[in-house]
């Protein structure tokens, strides 16, 4: 079983590594980090601060966008190009295939996040416990977003999957703002926002720097969350990943490959 899943994951990694857009994104993120360096020079003794802020925002934004891009295309093209015919006719279960595709994407995204983080550290962000925690949180955010994209991709076209995944990502990131906005709204809007927030992963848990959590101001430059918080947020992400992949498998299992 592990061998089959690994075979699919490895092949997915190989497939994704050929997508030129990813190299464009890499250049873009490293470029953004270099820009941060220039901006930091303009604001005296703020190099590291600007580099960290831009670097972390880059990991979160470009990592999530790449996760959506890979998630909506890689599964869909297998069906569209019929490459899946020679695969699922082998002794592999469909859930193994979906999991293998996800792990392959996860591998690509992990490499991307690692490169982004190293670029940030090298350019001036510097490595610290707070930065490591922020990078781990951003990594789990990206992995959760990949699971959202693959879930939609199991039954929809790349365009629609992309729209749905982007919407979920935006709502997930803005959960506290949506909650605050709905507080004084009509009961209908309150109920609708509550239902929406229930079915959307709390992605805001992964973007903590600059926010107030439990009355404490959190910042990657000063007082960062504890490793306990990082562990709990990561577990939250893993829970969503498992649930989304299970749903994706269920939908994928019922599909005819004509």
């Amino acid at each position: 079983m592990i061998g089959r899943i690994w075979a699919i994951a490895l092949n997915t990694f190989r497939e994704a590594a050929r997508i030129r857009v990813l190299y464009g994104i890499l250049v873009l993120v490293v470029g953004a980090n270099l820009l941060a360096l220039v901006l930091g020079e303009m604001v005296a003794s703020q190099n590291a601060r600007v580099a960290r802020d831009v670097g972390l925002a880059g990991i979160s934004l470009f990592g999530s966008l790449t996760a959506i891009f890979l998630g909506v295309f890689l599964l869909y093209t297998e069906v569209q190009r019929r490459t899946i015919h020679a695969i699922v006719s082998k002794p592999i279960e469909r859930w193994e295939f979906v999991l293998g595709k996800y792990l392959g994407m996860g591998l690509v995204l992990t490499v991307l996040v690692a490169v982004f983080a190293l670029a940030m550290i090298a350019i001036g962000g510097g490595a610290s416990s707070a930065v490591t925690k922020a990078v781990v949180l951003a990594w789990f955010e990206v992995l959760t977003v990949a699971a959202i994209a693959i879930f939609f991709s199991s039954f929809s076209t790349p365009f629609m999957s992309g729209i749905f995944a982007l919407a979920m990502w935006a709502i997930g990131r803005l959960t506290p703002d949506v909650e605050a906005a709905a507080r004084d709204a009509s009961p209908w809007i309150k109920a609708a926002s509550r239902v929406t927030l229930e079915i959307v992963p709390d992605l805001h848990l992964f973007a903590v720097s600059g926010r107030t959590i439990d009355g404490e101001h959190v910042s990657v430059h000063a007082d960062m969350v504890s490793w306990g918080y990082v562990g709990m947020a990561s577990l939250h992400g893993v829970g969503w990943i498992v649930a989304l992949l299970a749903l994706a498998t269920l939908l994928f299992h019922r599909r005819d490959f004509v």
Partner: protein
Amino acid sequence: MTRPRYPAAALGDFAIDVRDLRKTYRTPFARKKVEALRGVTFSVERGHIFGFVGPNGAGKTTTIRTLMGLIRPTGGAATILGEAIPSRRARAKVGFLPESPYFYDYLTVGELLDLAGRLFGMPAAVRKRRADELIERVGLGRARSQNLKKFSKGMLQRAGLAQALMNDPELVVLDEPMSGLDPIGRKEVRDLILELRDRGKTVFFSTHILSDVEAITDRVAIVARGQLQATGTPAELVKRTTLGIDVRVRLPAEIDTTALSEGASRVIRSPDELSLMLPADADVDAWLSRAHAAGAKVLEVTPRHETLEDLFLRQVAAADAPKESRA
């Protein structure tokens, strides 16, 4: 029409056993139903070469994809090597070549076979040895280092055959294996199928090329409009009945052939020849005497027996007839 026989053996005693298999596609919004399979029943004995023949849209590929677990049937039952479909355990013992195969074009044929071997759970050393053997066997030794993207259709078909044989399968299912191959390639595939049968394997393949079916199959099934029209050995299906007598004579251009052509079919008149088919019950001696009297020289007289192609065309026409009569 030869009705399918329902063997007394229980489901599972055959390499493939299909009973009343049905597949209906429903479009979600138009609420339109398309019946791709309308109760297909046949069985394939172990160690046989079984040809599955039908026109485009007959249901051949749908049947094969259903057997391979790519499509969920809406009715009926089927077993592969004794296991009810879809069965992962059965697929471990089956090799499958999809129709017009599409593979990851960034892989080389060796990498494709390695991926197939991994999915079959084969150890690395066995994968390597088996891939090397098969690449040579299907004649892709020279293209070993090329990406599949650079392969021609025929080369992809060969790569597809190799990945289908990676696990040394008990049953080989080939959807249009001759497609895209030149005459030499087709002969090589025919030889490969015969070799597999000689090694005790079962081969189930679909094709449009009837001469291949007639030449190598133990049994044939003809499918049209989602239903089985006939099944049996080629000899059982193609009766030795004479359809007519093909006659070809040399005849000067100025001779009127109206009288000689009376009652005949497929009449072709060239400047110095006349060829036609006389009815099976025609008095050939009398016709030849008349031709001699007219100054003809006989070149050829051949009784024409029914071929698998004739049977195929008849069965397909019969399957289409109810639709046309309704129209």
